[in-house]
């Protein structure tokens, strides 16, 4: 068995293979559902209904997709330049910390001034968090995969420390949580009485912004060149270290913004379970979107739909909601396999 690079790619395959990938991951999920004794069709129906069966459900899905768009973009930007940022989780929390630090009364400004300031603070906090591993990569050649992963654990402990100390909610009855942000620091809701907030539009804008950067700017060009072939990029005089730093700032900043959006738009305060793995799920979103910023929006909504739908399904059908995470993980593996088959053809001899 061997792989042969394809010279050209029929459009049919470009559509067929990803479709096949989704189908295979559904099939695997169906088998797991069978294990639980429930009917896969009933379960899938309930998941779909829970994700998009009503306006309420769909708005809930969009709400959940908001942080995923940000972390998905963070991963997509970094992976494009082959900066393996697996630390979205850490950057997310640092963004949230910055939001809470400045948004719970430290600054008394009107909302139009305070909100941009909080965004900026969250971007800086997230960006700086990724800058450390990037510096170690540039200066010492330390693999950023491991350092960003380890940083996830360090940061969550740091947050825990803050919630016991400086950011502790005096009215929290001992729960590890921060005080709520002031009302000027809250993102307005998009639909009256629903949870969807301005963060969603921010996320979509961010995707458009990254799209423009990728397609139109020298920075986007540099990041692509470095990602494809760092040796040739260096030879041509592209400033590799600077590009890495730019990528890190962009990627970390986006993940930090996710933390700000969750605190200021949805939860109102910082807790240790603010992120149910948004950083890791962002990697899946980015890969499902084939690293395309606009694809990230669609992929994030898809992944969020599975999570939201599975929660609803779990309550009524009794199948553990972890099925959603299994589906997302299999979708990731199937998708990267499918992409490989669009570039190579399998020959049995």
């Amino acid at each position, binding site marked *: 068995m061997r792989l042969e690079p394809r010279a050209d790619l029929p459009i049919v395959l470009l559509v067929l293979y990803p479709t096949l990938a989704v189908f295979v991951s559904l099939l695997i999920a169906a088998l797991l559902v069978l294990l639980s004794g429930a009917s896969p069709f009933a379960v899938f129906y309930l998941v779909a209904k829970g994700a998009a069966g009503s306006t309420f459900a769909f708005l809930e899905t969009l709400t959940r997709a908001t942080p995923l768009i940000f972390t998905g973009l963070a991963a997509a930007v970094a992976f494009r330049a082959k900066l393996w940022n697996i630390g979205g989780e850490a950057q997310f929390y640092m963004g949230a910390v910055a939001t809470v630090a400045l948004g719970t009364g430290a600054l008394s400004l009107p909302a139009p001034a305070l909100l941009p300031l909080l965004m900026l603070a969250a971007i800086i906090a997230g960006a700086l968090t990724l800058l450390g591993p990037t510096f170690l990569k540039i200066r010492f050649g330390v693999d950023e995969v491991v350092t960003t992963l380890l940083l996830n654990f360090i940061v969550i402990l740091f947050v825990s420390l803050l919630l016991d100390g400086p950011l502790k909610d005096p009215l929290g009855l001992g729960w590890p949580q921060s005080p709520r942000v002031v009302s000027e620091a809250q993102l307005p809701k998009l639909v009256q009485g629903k949870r969807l907030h301005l963060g969603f539009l921010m996320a979509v804008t961010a995707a458009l912004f990254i799209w423009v950067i990728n397609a139109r*700017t020298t920075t986007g060009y540099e990041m692509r060149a470095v990602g494809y*072939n760092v040796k*040739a990029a260096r*030879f041509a005089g592209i400033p590799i270290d600077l590009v890495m730093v730019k990528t890190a700032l962009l990627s970390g900043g986006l993940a930090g913004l996710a933390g700000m959006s969750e605190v200021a738009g949805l939860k109102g305060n910082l807790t240790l379970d603010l992120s149910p793995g948004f950083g890791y799920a962002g990697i899946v979103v980015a890969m499902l979107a084939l690293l395309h910023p606009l694809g990230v929006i669609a992929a994030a909504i898809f992944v969020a739909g599975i999570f939201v739908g599975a929660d609803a399904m779990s309550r009524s059908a009794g199948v553990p909601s972890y099925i959603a995470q299994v589906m997302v993980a299999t979708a990731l593996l199937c998708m990267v396999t499918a992409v490989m088959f669009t570039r190579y053809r399998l020959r049995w*001899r």
Partner: protein
Amino acid sequence: MVLRLSGINKRFGQLLANDAISLTLRRGEIISLLGENGAGKTTLMNILFGHYVADAGTIEVFGRPLPPGEPSAALSAGIGMVHQHFTLADNLTVLENIVLGTESPWRLNSQSVVAARRIKKLSAAFGLHVDPEATVATLSVGERQRVEILKALYRNARILILDEPTAVLTPQESKALFGTLKSLVNEGLSVIFISHKLNEVMAVSDRVYVLRGGRLIAERETSKTNRVELAELMVGRTIPEPKLTKQTPGAVMAELLDVSLRMDDKLLLDRVSLQLRSGEILGIAGVAGNGQSALADLLSGLSFPTKGDVRIEDHNYPSLTPSLALELKLARIPEDRLSQGLIVDMSVVENLIAERYRESKFSRLGFLDWNAARDFAIEIVREFDVKCPSPATSVRLLSGGNMQKLILGRVLAEKPRIIIANQPSRGLDVGAVAYVHARLLAARAEGAAILILSEDLDEIISLSDQIAVAYRGRISVPVARANVTIRDLGLMMAGHGFDHAADAEAEHAA
């Protein structure tokens, strides 16, 4: 008859690499596969050895059919192959490289003492001297080739394939290799010798198969043919020799003064001094790995000298970077097109602007002007005769020759004042080689100062005004082309004429 290939066909995408090729090999015979780069020689041998599977055709070894696509089957049938790019693990010892795969994987311990004894015996019998306990990384290129041959002999190979074995050797080392081949043949082995060098083919083989464009063009007894006939068969048309018109060199454009480069405790360049003059080509000959890459990297802005001065137009540049080099109109043609010269997953346009995308012509305030880039690319593609479907084509899909033309277009379009060309024609077919040479000579006529580094001695001799030799990080004093012979150069490539104090230090550093 020990080997028979019949009707071998192999297609890679659009390219028909082997078209119905049949050949035979007898016991105790050396045959040559002669053909220019891209003629299909290596593909054919990779099919024989099982790296590739033929689309059609059969292989018989000692009368038995050889199962396709299994190197292990080829090895056990008695076929040994010395690849052009050695297949050795650098951090392992010679012994480990040789015994790999010869013992059952279920064995609980390796019989290294017995193996070492056998290797020493084989070394002595065929003049392939190398220390079995040495780590491959410490060996010279010539020694590595000996390890490759020993690998085959250790497995009792009866048929030995050598793919362009002399490309990495000095003329004298090549001669020693031919001696080894003769002694192997006297022991009853058969040898397939792949080359594009006519005099070697004439010197070593009994029969010659000529390949061109994937097809078998001719078969000749060596005793009944001559260089002229083989050259015509191989190329199929006459290619004009590069003409070096007389020209008085101008001012010194770039200069190295006593430059040393040390990296990871290795002395890569040792007190190198040289001058590049306007309108003159300085050629550096030498066996691979004697400091040529370090010299090219230094002048390309990829590394900085540990000691000494790099002067360009009378200014000292202790830390020349690629972008600074570009500002100084110093053009660089890198050694390896695929890994260093081009970003093969990007388009022709994107590759052509790689060195210049920040210029105001192509970008403003950080925004790229793709229309300007596309126009520029179309112009270069036309001027440098790059064959590609469109400027948006991924470079991966171009042939080697067209990739090199793309690099030439990128670096020569702006009329550089200095050109550093490292292995500018490596792996190209004759037509593309001629094109590259013509372009370099045109640049020389326009007054560029040119440095050419090449392992191909013929290329150095046909292009250079001045010739120097690289040996263990040292560069000899250049000599005018009219005053050197191939024999002298060969001796220098083996280290003659370099002072021994330098050798000792280089050895110590290594």
